[in-house]
């Protein structure tokens, strides 16, 4: 590709190439700078706390003790609840839209689901406080946060799943139907195996978003300290929520601890996203190879 461009000496091409390279480099530069600055500013607390930053349950700015375990747990626990809620719904909707719904219903449904994705997270958060916490009496808890996050990641998982599912070659589906399969048997025999990798990737992208979501979680999770429990009705806290809540009034060491939380979150979400992207890409290549 690059060689082709170089071969022609049109100015437009050259300018385009540099702009494209610049844009690509800028993204990496920003990511690199973010990582560098954050790691540098997280160093004081990591130096002080060592590995106990990840294993201690105590978080006290008065005593200079910063243990992130409860927040790490809260992030993973709420994200797990969110995925458990979002996956069946998303897959159901994606299958309905692609395999079951009549043609005239398909477009409006896709549109409405995509619309859910653009609702600002603070709106979900406030809705969670008013409806789930107060009206339904769930209080501020892991479960409330998990439900809100689940609703928030449903549109992403749905639209990615829908696109993955639509790559199933019609010939495979028709083959199943021709052999006398019912619609469900056809889905199980040809659609799901074909799109498995892509679906896993879609779920993991949703998981990444659930773990990083800040404001909605901060509003409904309850901001309780030291909670490492599988009781979904308990109040707790998550990494992004702690950062959002405590940043404004934090002093030096406290800030460093919050940045260390951010680094931890950064690493986890990047890992999840990289794995997800790899899985999606592999399955795409796989399916493309199959269909041609």
């Amino acid at each position: 590709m690059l060689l082709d461009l170089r071969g022609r000496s049109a100015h437009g091409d050259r300018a385009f190439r540099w702009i494209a390279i610049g844009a690509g480099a800028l993204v990496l530069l920003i990511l690199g700078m973010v990582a560098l600055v954050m790691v540098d500013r997280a160093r004081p607390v990591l130096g002080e706390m060592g590995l106990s930053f990840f294993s201690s349950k105590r978080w006290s700015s008065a005593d200079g003790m910063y243990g992130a375990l409860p927040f790490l747990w809260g992030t993973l626990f709420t994200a797990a609840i969110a995925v458990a809620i979002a996956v069946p719904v998303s897959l159901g909707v994606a299958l309905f839209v692609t395999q079951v719904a009549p043609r005239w219903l398909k477009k409006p449904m896709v549109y409405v689901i995509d619309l859910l994705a653009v609702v600002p997270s603070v709106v979900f958060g406030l809705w969670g406080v008013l409806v789930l916490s107060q009206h339904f009496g769930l209080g501020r808890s892991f479960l409330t946060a998990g439900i809100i996050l689940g609703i928030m990641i449903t549109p992403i998982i749905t639209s990615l799943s829908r696109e993955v599912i639509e790559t199933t070659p019609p010939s495979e589906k028709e083959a199943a139907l021709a052999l006398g399969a019912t619609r469900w048997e056809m889905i199980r025999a040809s659609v799901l195996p074909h799109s498995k990798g892509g679906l896993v990737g879609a779920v993991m992208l949703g998981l990444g978003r659930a773990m990083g979501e800040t404001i909605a979680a901060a509003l409904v999770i309850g901001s309780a300290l030291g909670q490492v429990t599988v009781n979904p009705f308990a109040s707790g806290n998550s990494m992004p929520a702690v950062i959002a809540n405590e940043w404004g009034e934090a002093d030096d060491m406290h800030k460093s601890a919050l940045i260390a939380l951010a680094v931890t979150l950064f690493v986890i979400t990047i890992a999840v996203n990289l794995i997800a992207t790899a899985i999606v890409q592999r399955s795409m290549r796989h399916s493309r190879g199959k269909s041609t």
Partner: protein
Amino acid sequence: MNKLLIAVALLGACGKKEEGSSGKGGGKPASGGAVTLNASGATFQQPFQEVAIEAFTKANAGIKINYGAGGSGKGRQDFADQVVDFACSDAPYKEADVGKVKGGEFFYIPNVLGPITVSYNVPGVDKLQLSPDVLAKIFGREMKKWNDPAIAADNAGVTLPDLDIVVARRSDGSGTTENFTKYLTLAAPDAWKLKSGSTVEWPADTQAGNGNSGVAQIVKSTKGAIGYVDLSDAKASGLKYAALKNASGAYVDPSVAAATAAGEGIEIKDNLIFSALNSKAPTAYPITAQSWCLIYAKQTDKAKGTAAVAYFKYMLTDGQSLLGEIDFAPIPKVLQDKALAQLAKVQVP
């Protein structure tokens, strides 16, 4: 060669943009007499800044003031980094951080006092009195029932229900939490064990709300709830609040007058740092928070410096009369005189 030039030009452009938007506090001279002052800091005194800025800029056309209420900590940081022209904070810098203030010598100008109420929601109880030890044990979750004998001892003649106490506190780091917990460490050193700070290690069975209004909302909607809320939010939410036993033994309701009184019975250092908490004045409300605005002693820009001094002067004089309406308290005369004297030392080129 060409390619390299373009790349350098692109990078150069990026660099310049960043420089421009970081906007140093000293800034360039204002053109045509219009001056914009940028400030940031305490959310506590945001209501005051809003009304004071509105009144001041109306009277002084050509001056514009932006106050970003990002918290006291952010205000101190922004002021130290010289990204704002002045800042406001509920707490002074720590000793170690004073050296990090890049613009050199600066003054603390006290401008606002405000009572922090202990608001509660107990059906049938319209008058509640609390002593420091009881308050500490309630918020430390050692006392869990409203009809606890210790609470009853503070409230002769009041029938307290057999109701669980629900403690409401801030989920966000806050100067209000800092002042409230600092008060408890001063007034109930034995009974209060959670220490003080913008966030403390609240027991897990407490309810967290965002901002004063979030705590007020929990208190309002929960039977048996008690929480610390500033007076204006408590009034806005129609909450009942307790009379607290002050350092000279009297039970005092939170009010504007009782907060100003708290500013009278206290020790004021030469740099105007003081604490109005647990004041010994007989009519003082004990949980009275204070706030300062910070200004550099040597202003570098004539127009901005003049405008900033004028605004500070306004806050200390005419502006004080705006405080009562928004349920904050004016600073007492002794403090006002000292603040004005300090402000007179600010040098404007």
